[in-house]
């Protein structure tokens, strides 16, 4: 029988690992190697978690969910001729504060205030007359559910059904709060709350996990090696976080890693390129509005190694001719695959990336693909401006993010499965392969152009 190593042995071993890893800690410079980025690139500091698991829904969270759900008027203003009154927007687009992060119904985790989100949605769904019509849903509807369609769907529900749906969405979001905090921290440089790991054991590593993880009890201290700060609490209605570490600061000093209570589980190095999912496990959408079901078909195919067909997923997603909601996409990934396991990406959730730079977006892709080994639900607006190889503009759309690389020209690329085969619906257009790579900057710009500007991670 093997003897368990003593704590001193573990500590010495951890120190050796840290010293060995020190040369690979980012120091800025080029981004073609395996070094994590610095400067505008994410500011990595060691933490003791890989993908966070599901968070516990605390009494405070339950109270917040109840507050938000109860604030929905039982009777919404009538929608005449398809117009959505401001009262409907204000009544249905509401935000909850979970542990200092804000989640808005239908929108995802955001740094915008509730008022800002409501104002933006109101502008997006306003009728064309009397305003600029840039958001008119005139282009080919390739399948995401627009804000207008989502509000109409919610408004048609009975108050009880609506409350149930809102509770379900908010509960799902609350269970991903630790993961969101870690993304904010690692990708956007927001300091973690001092008591983060104490409050979120799901964000810690365990002794039985893979190399690089440590005993749960050893990481109860704050994860950030940089001086700890107060939580970046975002009370509903408050402004964007002001305590976020600027992403343009100098890289974390090498010594920072050595002060961590545990070996970093965030890779200080990423492969220069990585991809997941098999090229053969792709499909094209067979209905113009089925980008959601087809993306889900490919995501689940990659997990289950079995193709259940888009129709199966259209039913699971509640897809209609108006499209598929991104909140449904993350729900089905969580419920129907293991991509949400802590050993992969943890709970999928909807994340607003309006404030992300291209470098941060690329870093998120690196993290998701190389570390989580799980796909990303991309949510662009399918305009020729961003995808000029398409013959015509499309509408809101889903793609499956599954790779990243820096090409020989130094351009950061994201790899994705593209369900939209323009030739299927428009035979006068040439075929485009399902497996595609495009510059990360174009993909992010297309996502930001979508009025929802969010993704599923």
């Amino acid at each position, binding site marked *: 029988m093997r003897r368990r190593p003593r704590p001193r042995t573990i500590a010495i071993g951890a120190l050796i690992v840290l010293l060995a890893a020190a040369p690979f800690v980012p120091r800025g410079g080029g*981004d*073609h*190697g395996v070094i994590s980025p610095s400067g505008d690139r994410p500011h990595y500091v060691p933490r003791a978690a890989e993908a966070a698991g599901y968070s516990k829904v605390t009494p405070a969270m339950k109270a917040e969910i109840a507050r938000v759900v109860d604030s929905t008027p039982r009777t919404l203003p009538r929608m005449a001729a398809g117009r959505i009154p401001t009262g409907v927007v204000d009544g249905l687009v509401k935000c909850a504060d979970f542990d200092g992060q804000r989640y808005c119904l239908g929108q995802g985790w955001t740094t915008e205030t509730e008022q800002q989100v409501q104002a933006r949605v109101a502008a997006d769904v306003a009728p064309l007359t009397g305003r*600029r*019509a*840039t*958001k*008119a*849903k*005139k*282009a080919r509807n390739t399948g995401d559910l627009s804000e207008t369609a989502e509000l109409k769907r919610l408004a048609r529900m009975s108050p009880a059904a609506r409350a149930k749906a809102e509770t379900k969405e908010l509960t799902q979001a609350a269970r991903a709060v630790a993961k969101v905090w870690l993304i904010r921290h690692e990708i956007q440089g927001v300091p973690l709350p001092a008591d983060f790991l104490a409050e979120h054991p799901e964000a810690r590593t365990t002794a039985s996990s893979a190399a690089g993880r440590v005993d749960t009890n050893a990481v109860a201290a704050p994860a950030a090696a940089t001086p700890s700060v107060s939580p970046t609490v975002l009370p509903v209605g408050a402004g964007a976080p002001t305590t976020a570490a600027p992403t343009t600061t100098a890289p974390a000093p090498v010594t920072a890693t050595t002060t961590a209570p545990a070996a970093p589980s965030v890779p200080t190095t990423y492969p*220069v*390129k*990585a*991809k*997941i*999912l*098999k*090229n*053969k496990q792709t499909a094209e959408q067979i209905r113009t509005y089925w980008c959601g079901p087809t993306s889900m078909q490919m995501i689940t195919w*990659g997990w289950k*190694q079995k193709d259940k067909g888009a129709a199966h997923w259209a039913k699971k997603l509640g897809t209609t001719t108006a499209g598929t909601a991104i909140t449904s996409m993350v729900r089905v990934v969580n419920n129907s695959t*293991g991509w949400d396991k802590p050993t992969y990406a943890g709970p999928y959730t909807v994340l607003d990336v309006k404030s992300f730079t291209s*470098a941060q977006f*690329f870093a998120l892709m690196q993290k998701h693909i*190389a570390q989580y080994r799980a796909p990303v639900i991309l949510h662009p607006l399918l305009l*020729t*401006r961003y995808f*000029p190889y398409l*013959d*015509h*503009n499309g*509408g809101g759309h889903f793609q499956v993010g*599954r790779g990243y690389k*820096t090409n*020989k*020209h*130094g*351009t*950061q*690329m994201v*790899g994705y499965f593209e369900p939209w085969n323009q*030739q299927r*619906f*428009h*035979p*006068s*257009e*040439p*075929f485009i*392969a399902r497996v*595609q*790579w*495009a*510059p*990360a*900057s*174009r993909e992010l*710009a297309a996502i930001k*152009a979508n009025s929802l500007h969010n993704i599923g991670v």
Partner: protein
Amino acid sequence: MRRLTLALALAGALLLTGCSHHDDQPGQAASPGDQPTPSAPSTSASAPASSTPPSTPAASGTSTAQATPALLDWKPLPGSTEDSSMTNGSWVLTVGQQGGWWSLAKGGGGKHVQAPAGLAVANQLLDADWAVVVYQDPNGEKPERAVVTSLADGSTYMLDKSSPLPPSSDGSWALRGSTLSYATDHGKDYCLATADLGTKQATLGWCAAPQHGFSSIVTGPSGTAMLTFDSGQPSCRTVVTVSGTQTTPFPGVPACKGAQGALLPSGSVWSVVPNEHQYQRVHVYATTPGGVVDLGTGTNSTMTVCGDSVFWSRDAQGQGGPADLMRWDGSKLTVAYRSHAGSAFLGVPLCADDVLSIFSSADGGDEQVSAHVS
């Protein structure tokens, strides 16, 4: 109407033979639980225009052009960068982001004309004397229709299903002078038509074979080029010159790899897609009396002829660099526009008369500008 359908047998065959790329061969990706494959760090931050795509056989005698800056005098276009604007130096034609409306006015602005119910603006075309706005059924079921506006007197008329050669439901458009090129359904055939906007006379041109189509019509002073293709997966794409009812493939273009072509008095410019899984990126060449010249990389479907030159967009070479608008005048390669630096890319350059309009996006800010090319 003879339209392409998915010819499955042919498609399957082409899928096996035409999709041979190293980086994305089926079955090589990791499955859940597998680690992504690490690879050696890249050492090159950028590549010169001379880089040759490994999978694109270059014609013998290929030389390489080195780009030099020769920036045009760019001026901001009025309006939001969310909308697509182009100008001929006087009139500004703008289309709302998702084709919900358009406007046409001297100096910009103007009344928003809403697209008819169920239709969206799919194309905007402008020249010295004419403006054309194309409405399309996003589902591709109804025929397209074009609103033709005379800039001389403001009069308009519609090119639609009541016209002798009605537009197809879906196709490429081009305007040069008073000649409008577009796709038409002629009986069961899918054909290229040209219309003289002044006389309203339309002429039937080349018709595609069954299970074939065409797109990317590029017109210039030396003629019309376009891309023809079949229904394979991937499509076998051929860049051709159009003359009446005949087409002639561009010489020297690798079979089935074509992307776009354009004609100049001194020769032609053409692009190919080196990797079907990076359909966004093309490699551009020029055929000159002295041989084939390698013009470097570009962005697919951005080639246009304006004045005496061919222009195309090139995304940033390296994450921190600018995006460039490249120009080939038949003898030298220049950079006509350079964007702000950082995660930069350009839209499709739009030519009206001898004025080029371009949208650019970069960390330093988006902009939409125009410049005379001569």
